[in-house]
């Protein structure tokens, strides 16, 4: 029965529809494997077994009546950033200690309305700030992937799954859920997907509702799926996306049936290869992977065009002004008064200062302070306004590119997964993980990471596709082509599985 956990989302749905197994059996299989295996990966912060079993029972009843909805009975993991009514929702932070929201996020409500089952809340970098899932209050997440040495033997160093959606990526890659919700502000879906051999989509800004998602940077945050295949990601996105009147940045554009894009021809598709993404010191194997991706798309009938996105290198520093600035504003609410951790102080201000000092981790504090500084009197123009102007130029680079191409292909990350602690010394070394992904958030565009190969050490590498606003269909179509050519990558030694 534990083999049920190895199924993809669409395979599981077919199995349930055909009666090969029940939703209760499927959910029980996941709950059992989480119980024995999660301790090795720390992907889940908490499981919601009772609610999961109840939802699975209801799903079985619906299948019996022929009333199955789009995701009926399919067990998913939910990133701790999403408000899940009555369940742990802390953005993996101590400052939101014991917070259980009396409301549900729109995105997760969409999933439950489609019949999905919640297995639990997934670990993440605190307040979504990080690229390695090493900043969580609940401890780091360990990737199910391990490096192989020259003899081909598995090494023991724990690798990071990427971040901030590290728990989501690790859980999907390790078969601890069929698919997971995640969020992406500077790369937090795509980078962990690339590091774990999974598919990750950051939809167009405004495609999915941000209502009920703990806010980090409101002009950059976007919810999206991490899944085992492009088909799975398409199905998840279709359900997660919606127009939401409760989110004023939610765009009223119809959600298409993204699954119909899979297998469609990309003959004549114009693929852009931006020369500025070829950075100094880029690993040879990353460059080879990129070339391989170009060949695959060409073989499928696409035409390849070199393009220029001249402001590419300024996206990351601009992001590290805009995102912390918005975060300093969004995190001002955590003051120990209405929810979360309160540390008693001599007076009200002292209570705020102590609650926040004890509640926030190091990286969060760093970013809140940077944000406070760049927004403060005398510095606002030089930093925040300047960064917002650079942001306009980054968007304009892409606007011009769309005249010549339909989709852009780049590597997702400069290198594959690194070991725990390897980049913790210098904040900027960690920030550089997002060098290929931040441009997409800054321009509000949709981006997909698809597994495309393994590194010399046997760890996954991904390719990123970027498209015009609301052109997720092209991403799924081209992503499917890459997936068909590259194949799927799963860890061959399942060292985290017990029993």
């Amino acid at each position, binding site marked *: 029965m534990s083999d049920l956990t190895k199924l993809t989302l669409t395979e599981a749905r077919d199995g349930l529809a055909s009666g090969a197994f029940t939703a209760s059996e499927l959910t029980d299989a996941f709950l059992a494997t989480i119980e024995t295996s999660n301790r090795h990966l720390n992907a889940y912060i908490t499981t919601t077994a009772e609610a999961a079993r109840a939802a699975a029972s209801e799903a079985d009843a619906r299948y019996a009546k022929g009333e199955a909805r789009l995701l009926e009975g399919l067990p998913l993991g939910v990133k701790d950033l999403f408000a899940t009514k009555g369940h742990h929702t802390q953005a993996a932070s101590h400052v939101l200690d014991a917070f259980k929201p009396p409301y549900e996020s729109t995105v997760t409500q969409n999933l439950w309305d489609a019949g999905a089952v919640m297995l639990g809340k997934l670990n993440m970098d605190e307040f979504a700030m990080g690229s390695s899932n090493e900043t969580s209050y609940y401890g780091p997440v360990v990737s199910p992937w391990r490096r192989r040495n020259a003899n081909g033997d598995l090494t023991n160093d724990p690798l990071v799954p990427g971040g901030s959606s590290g728990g989501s990526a690790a859980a999907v890659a390790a078969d601890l859920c069929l698919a997971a919700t995640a969020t992406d502000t500077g790369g937090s879906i795509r980078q962990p997907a690339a590091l774990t051999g999974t598919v990750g989509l950051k939809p*167009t800004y405004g495609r999915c509702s941000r209502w009920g998602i703990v806010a980090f940077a409101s002009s950059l945050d976007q919810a999206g799926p991490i899944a085992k295949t492009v088909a799975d990601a398409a199905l998840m996105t279709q359900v997660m996306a919606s127009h939401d009147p409760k989110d004023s940045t939610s765009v009223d554009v119809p959600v298409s049936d993204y699954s119909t894009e899979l297998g469609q021809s990309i003959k004549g598709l114009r693929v852009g290869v931006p020369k500025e993404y070829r950075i100094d010191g880029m690993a040879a194997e990353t460059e080879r992977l990129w070339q391989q991706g170009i060949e695959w798309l060409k073989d499928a009938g696409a035409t390849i065009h070199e393009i220029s996105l001249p402001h590419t290198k300024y996206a990351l520093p601009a992001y590290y002004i805009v995102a912390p600035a918005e975060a300093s504003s969004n995190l001002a609410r955590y003051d120990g*008064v209405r929810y979360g951790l309160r540390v008693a102080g001599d007076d009200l201000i002292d209570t705020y*200062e102590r609650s*926040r000092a004890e509640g926030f981790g190091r990286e969060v504090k760093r970013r809140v302070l940077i944000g406070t500084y760049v927004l403060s009197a005398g510095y606002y123009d030089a930093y925040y306004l300047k*960064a917002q102007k*650079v942001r*306009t130029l980054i*968007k304009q680079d892409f606007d011009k590119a769309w005249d010549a191409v339909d989709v852009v292909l780049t590597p997702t990350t400069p290198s594959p997964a690194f070991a725990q602690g390897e980049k913790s010394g210098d904040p900027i070394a960690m920030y550089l993980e997002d060098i290929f992904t931040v441009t997409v958030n800054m321009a509000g565009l949709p981006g997909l990471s698809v597994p495309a190969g393994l590194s010399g050490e046997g760890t996954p590498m991904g390719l990123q596709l970027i498209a015009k606003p609301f052109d997720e269909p092209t991403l799924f179509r081209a992503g499917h082509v890459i997936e068909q050519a590259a194949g799927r990558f799963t860890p061959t030694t399942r060292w985290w599985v017990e029993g």
Partner: protein
Amino acid sequence: MEVDEATVRRIARLARIRITDDEARSLEGELSGILGWVEQLGEVDTDGVEPMTSVVPIELKMRDDVVTDGDKAADVTANAPMSEDGFYVVPKVVE
């Protein structure tokens, strides 16, 4: 941009985060490093460029000005560290 310890303390006060002496010293280096790194934006000519205030160009949706929510004091205060009679209880604000 170098930030000195006094500036770090001023920002921490603005951000309402208590920092220890050790933290103030290490943050001096970390924040200076990050702010120095973002200085490269000065290389970009942004004359005549509008700051991006709307990610996707849409009009703000309007709705009728009617009350559609409320009467949920119990829900709203459910997670409060200290509350009483539908109020949040805080240390006395002395004026």
